[in-house]
């Protein structure tokens, strides 16, 4: 668990363009400690520290909490801050509300209580069925990147897209845990785009958490900005929710997108 969280923190920090020393200073820890965390040799940071890291990286704190400690902890931290919410949940449980009723509550919330912050970047926004490759048989991360590049390249030769992503991947591998890898690159132009590669069997790779990599999410972003970082964090969050297990036996691109949508609530 700590190795996977560390790898995600390292990836997000690198992509945010923040050095180890700068982040350590900003949250008041030693660079040596932070380095141990990133390499999984020290425990996952406390919620307070995660919130501080999120502020420095300009990411929503809840997202980082969920990545690091699961949705339960993120929720617990909210319930602690807003005790009134607890009684609402108790009330919902007492009435045994199901998915349909909760959908109605959600619709009411969307109408009357829109989210304060701007809508966050989501994988589904930058993915189209053409960019979803299922039943893939890949040897390694290079194959995953080549497959993604083959579908993502429209203006640029696929080999250049692949080379760009591979170059970034060599700099810092993008293992985000639970069988998911998120190779990505900054393209300098165009819109954000993603490709999803679902490999039936695991690929040859050494993820820090030891879970065989079966899903590759390849992201191309015009700039290393907040949107890009949020997208990466979102993918890490989806990975934590079991993206690889949900997708691994999808037969068609449409089926994979449906399963992604089901994971991507809230």
């Amino acid at each position: 668990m700590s190795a996977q969280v560390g790898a995600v923190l390292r990836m997000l920090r690198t992509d945010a363009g923040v050095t180890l020393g700068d982040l350590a200073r900003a949250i008041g820890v030693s660079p040596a400690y932070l380095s141990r965390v990133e390499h999984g040799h020290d425990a996952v940071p406390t919620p307070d520290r995660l919130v501080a890291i999120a502020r420095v990286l300009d990411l929503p704190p809840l997202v980082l909490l969920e990545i690091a400690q699961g949705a339960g902890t993120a929720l617990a931290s909210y319930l602690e801050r807003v005790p009134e919410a607890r009684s609402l949940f108790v009330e919902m449980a007492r009435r045994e509300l199901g998915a349909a009723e909760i959908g109605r509550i959600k619709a009411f919330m969307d109408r009357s209580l829109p989210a304060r912050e701007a809508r966050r970047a989501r994988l589904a926004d930058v993915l189209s069925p053409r960019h979803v490759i299922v039943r893939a048989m890949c040897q390694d991360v290079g194959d995953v990147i080549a497959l993604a590049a083959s579908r993502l390249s429209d203006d640029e030769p696929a080999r250049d897209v692949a080379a760009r992503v591979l170059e970034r991947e060599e700099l810092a591998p993008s293992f985000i845990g639970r069988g998911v890898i998120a190779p990505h690159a900054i393209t300098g132009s165009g819109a954000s785009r993603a490709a999803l590669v679902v490999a039936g069997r695991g690929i040859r790779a050494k993820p820090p958490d030891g879970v065989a990599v079966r899903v590759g999410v390849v992201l191309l972003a015009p700039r290393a900005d907040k949107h890009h970082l949020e997208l990466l964090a979102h993918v890490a969050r989806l990975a934590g929710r079991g993206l690889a297990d949900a997708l691994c036996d999808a037969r068609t691109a449409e089926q994979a997108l449906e399963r992604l949508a089901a994971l991507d609530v809230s």
Partner: protein
Amino acid sequence: VRRIYPPSEVARELAVPAARARDGFRVLTCIANDSAGPALVAMARALGGDDADVIALHLANDDTDAGAVLAPALSRASELGVSARPLAFASGDPADDIVRIADARDVDVVLLGTYGGVAAAVFARAPATIAAVDLAAALADPPTHVLVPVDGSSDGDAALAVASRMQRASGIEITVVDVAATRAARRSIERCEQSGGKLVVESAPTVTAARAAAFDLVVVGASQRALLPPDTRSLVVRGPREAR
């Protein structure tokens, strides 16, 4: 102090295998079914010699087990001492995906199993050199004696270039038939010899079935394909084009 997990070890473990420098002669073999694979791998071996770097690609549009389709190709590759890696995925448009993968993997040659509809679409679009094996199943081993009809056309030159490539890589013997008896055809043959090709040169207006049967394979330019008698074991070649 013993270092429990030195950074060099971390770097080694996290290294991306495919990111190594591009080496060898990369051949994309497009394998439609399990019986087509071994012949394509043998052909890739002839083209690349010991440096052949084969991608065994299967594009499924149904529930076929890609591993089972590619297994005979991979075992033939290991018999021939060729490095081969499997690659497969679901594709609704195999010709388009073959062209795209050839680009993404920066291949030297695309090898197709038959000269059919998919091949025609790939021939029309891929920038790499493309070759389609006709009657592939008949060719279990890499060819050693090939016949090349030459007429001075660019497709004929591409066929001769592919045969020369096989000669350099695996020392095959090449017999050229000058089917046009034009200055352009003679120049094509001379150019090949000047760049080191060892050719036996014949002259005949066409390739007869009997003559073709004396060779393992006829390597022919796509536009000259009509010259060949039916049922000739052939490798139909189209030269490299400018990228899309």
